[in-house]
């Protein structure tokens, strides 16, 4: 086993991937094409409904997994199949090796199976003296190169045709052309003889139908059909979570899996194997068929109230397809065996802390994966839960603990922020940016200019602002500031107050409010996250207010989606947490939907305005139309490519992985630049900070601001 990798070593690996221009270009093209193709292929299907059905059916199935297993075993055995159950990877390997020995198998061929990779079956069989050949083209290529997969569906996506030609040249001892059509033919020729001579075929299973004892596999190449037909012995490996009650459930998985994986309506082949079918090589002319269900922690995970939904996964790989981090660094850096967001999670549960520790930090929490997940899994939520468990299991890194301690006490936190504005004086050079911080504090942060702390925080300006507001507004609004705006961008809040007052609100700013708690939750500091939530609820006394408005999409999404669950065990707080969460609104949808401020409320300046759709607004809160309509009311909206892709900020993420944050930002800036916008607005101060800092670094003269500032300026 390798030594435990340090964060420093992991970051070095990430840098290696960032420097691989072929990988970057390939994944970029793929990310853009996938989204467009996925939209098309879901056009004639109710996607959300299908996903909900999958989630509900999988959840239901997990509660009766023992029943399903027993039923499957009975039905399959009636049809001549041997059914096994393996508690661990080692046990599964032992069973496979025993079957190989009993049947005198020397050459083993495999069709693609993530479960087989999970248990490292090739290694076990080779130790046992068998030769193992992968037959999925991508898997065969990486096997020849002694590499792991970089995508669950496209394992060799990181390689170029030239690298494949070199690999095939080495394997065949003949010079191979780099033409892709010819390379595919090389595989056809080379692998056919392996199919013909193999003694055992190993497949996975995309589903196992309990009702009829059927396993099903989906493949495009057809290697699955040959693997399960030609050899005398067929061993299918399946996670026990692949059991479904009936054919309807299987058909439902077939509807979603290829659509979400590769934007196909269906894979070219779906093979349904009900019992051991004909095989002319055996004495009784029936295939020797074994199905092994692997547990490896799954039944325990099924009991884990917070993380069990990870077992709904159908292994489509879509979470990698849309991940802005995966797009930059590829699969070797985004998983151990399983790849992408689900890979970060399953590594922790199937392959242990050691392998998961650094990986689970590498999620920017943009929720793009959650948005496309075929089974509706809250992937970022589970990743954060795992971070919390890692902190509980092995303690937190020093900077995390410090932040947690500071945030738990609002007064200390706010004093520190106020102190910061004096401390930073020597480094700002009189500009709104931090310019001359010693290298030690700025490591890797060179991709953006960081803002300075404002000379007077919003909370210290509030008394004066409050005096100028009209009393007796028709709607009572509590303003939730969030740290970034309170202390760094108070002008954004001032602008918002102006708009809210114009819309007829009376605005309150409770002084006891503090950080929403998202940063500590991201770091796995559960207790600090609970304490900040409690403090905010107490400060607002939500029942008195009609709405609580925040200009920070991340705060809004965190409060709305997580406060209730965070405080589920806090005595007597459930109702208030619910009241708080249900009153929270983001600024744009509040102004447009609740205040009804539309075209006639604003002067249209005609200026070219670009928009960045903040992750926690468009996905966290499903607010997409309102800000765009408001922009159209105030100026000339210039749409840019990939507006809803993360800007790379991700709060503490950009401090932890600045090299990745910086690269994601460059994509964003390129797209915004191409739109020709002179002003860029967003609904989140973090995004404003990131994009403004990047534009400043590029020396671009575009204005980057919060949408509230634009609207306040254009108020009629």
């Amino acid at each position, binding site marked *: 086993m390798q030594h435990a990798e340090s964060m420093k070593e992991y970051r070095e690996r990430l840098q290696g991937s960032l420097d691989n221009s072929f990988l970057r270009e390939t994944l970029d093209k793929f990310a853009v094409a996938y989204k467009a193709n996925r939209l098309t292929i879901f056009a004639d299907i109710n996607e959300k409904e299908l996903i909900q059905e999958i989630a509900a059916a999988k959840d239901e199935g997990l509660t009766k997994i023992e029943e399903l297993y027993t039923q499957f075993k009975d039905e399959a055995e009636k049809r001549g199949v041997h059914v096994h159950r393996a508690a661990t990877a080692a046990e599964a390997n032992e069973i496979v090796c025993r079957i190989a020995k009993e049947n005198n198998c020397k050459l083993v061929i495999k069709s693609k199976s993530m479960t087989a990779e999970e248990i490292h079956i090739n290694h076990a069989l080779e130790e046992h003296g068998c030769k193992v050949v992968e037959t999925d083209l991508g898997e065969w*290529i990486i096997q020849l190169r002694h590499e792991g997969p970089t995508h669950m569906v496209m394992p060799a996506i990181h390689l170029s045709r030239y690298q494949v030609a070199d690999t095939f040249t080495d394997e065949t001892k003949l010079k191979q052309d780099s033409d892709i059509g010819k390379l595919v*033919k090389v595989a056809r020729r080379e692998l056919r003889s392996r199919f013909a001579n193999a003694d055992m075929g190993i497949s996975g299973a995309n589903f196992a139908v309990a009702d009829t004892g059927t396993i099903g596999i989906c493949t495009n190449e057809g290697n699955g059909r*040959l693997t399960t037909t030609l050899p005398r012995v067929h061993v299918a490996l399946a996670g026990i979570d692949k059991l479904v009650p*009936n054919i309807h459930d299987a058909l439902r998985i077939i509807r979603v899996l290829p659509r979400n994986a590769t934007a196909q309506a269906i894979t070219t082949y*779906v093979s349904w194997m009900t019992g051991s079918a*004909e095989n002319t090589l055996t004495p009784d002319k029936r295939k020797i068929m074994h199905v092994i269900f692997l547990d490896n922690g799954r039944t325990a995970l099924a009991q884990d109230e917070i993380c069990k939904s990870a077992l709904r996964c159908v292994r489509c790989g879509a979470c990698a397809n849309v991940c802005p981090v995966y797009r930059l660094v590829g699969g070797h850096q985004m998983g151990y065996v399983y790849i992408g967001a689900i890979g970060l999670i399953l590594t922790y549960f199937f392959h242990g802390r050691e392998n998961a520790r650094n990986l689970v930090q590498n999620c920017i929490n943009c929720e793009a994966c959650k948005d496309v997940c075929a089974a509706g899994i809250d992937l970022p939520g589970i990743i954060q839960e795992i971070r919390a468990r890692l902190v509980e299991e092995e303690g937190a890194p020093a900077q995390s603990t410090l932040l947690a301690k500071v945030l738990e006490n609002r007064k200390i936190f706010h004093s520190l922020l106020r102190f910061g504005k004096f401390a930073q004086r020597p480094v700002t050079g009189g500009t709104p940016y931090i310019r001359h911080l010693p290298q030690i504090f700025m490591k890797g942060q060179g991709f953006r200019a960081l803002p300075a702390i404002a000379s007077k925080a919003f909370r210290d300006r509030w008394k004066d602002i409050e005096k100028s507001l009209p009393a007796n507004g028709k709607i009572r609004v509590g303003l939730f500031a969030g740290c970034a705006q309170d202390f760094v961008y108070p002008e954004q809040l001032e602008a918002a107050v102006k708009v809210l007052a114009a819309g007829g609100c009376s605005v309150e700013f409770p002084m006891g409010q503090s950080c929403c708690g998202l940063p500590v939750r991201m770091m796995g500091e559960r207790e600090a996250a609970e304490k900040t939530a409690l403090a905010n609820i107490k400060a607002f006394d939500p029942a008195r207010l009609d709405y609580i408005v925040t200009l920070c999409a991340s705060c809004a999404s965190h409060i709305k989606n997580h406060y209730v669950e965070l405080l589920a065990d806090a005595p007597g707080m459930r109702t208030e947490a619910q009241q708080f969460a249900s009153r929270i609104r983001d600024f744009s949808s509040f102004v447009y939907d609740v205040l009804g401020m539309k075209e006639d409320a604003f002067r249209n300046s005609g200026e070219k305005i670009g928009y960045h759709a903040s992750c926690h607004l468009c996905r966290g809160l499903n607010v997409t139309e309102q800000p765009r309509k408001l922009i159209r009311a105030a100026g000339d909206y210039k749409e840019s490519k990939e507006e809803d892709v993360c800007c790379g900020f991700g709060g503490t993420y950009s401090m932890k992985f600045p090299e990745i944050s910086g690269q994601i930002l460059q994509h964003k800036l390129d797209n915004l630049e191409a739109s020709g916008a002179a002003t860029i607005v967003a609904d989140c101060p973090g995004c404003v900070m990131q994009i403004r800092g990047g534009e400043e670094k590029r020396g671009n003269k575009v204005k980057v601001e919060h949408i509230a500032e634009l609207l306040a300026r254009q108020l009629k």
Partner: protein
Amino acid sequence: MATIDKEAVELFKQKAAPVSIKVVEVKDMAEAVAYALDTCEKKDFCELVYCGTEQTSAGIVKAEKKMFCAPNLTDKEYSALAALGAERGFDMLRSGMRGHLEGIDVAFTTADGAVAETATTIIECMSEDVRLATMIAEVHVVALKKSQIKKTSYDVEPYLQKLMEKGVMYTAFISGASRTADIERVLTLGVHGPLELHIALMEG
């Protein structure tokens, strides 16, 4: 008399095109057979893929005689077909596919069902010969009756249920030629199985 869901038939044709399935409308089984034989006639000789690693990798080896197989026809259907194929000089066979893993030219089969929304044909493949023929042939021609086409996959659920609950079965959903995009995501047909899938769509 089986009824035809015209909407489903149109949908099948519409969904077949983007996944490179060639759909040809024919009157009956005789026309479907003629179409399959013509296809075999017109195609290039089969590229043999299994005659020892060194030889095959060195270059393309072509068959000298066309081979045509039809593993799931009834005896009557097969004997009519075999006579016609022999006239054209093809080697005709309906079993023993394991002996021809280096490749055959055309596999002709009849479908057991179809799903329009994904252009899927369903073939019961309990027999090893049916499974192998539909994989090792360069061109696979399926005879499908319009009345067999259902609109969605859920519409074939009762059929599948009946098929699988009665005993041992190997069922194939086939929705195109064997394909891969594993090298640079470039779509390439014929990686392990057929390079082409044709549907001879029969009235009735």
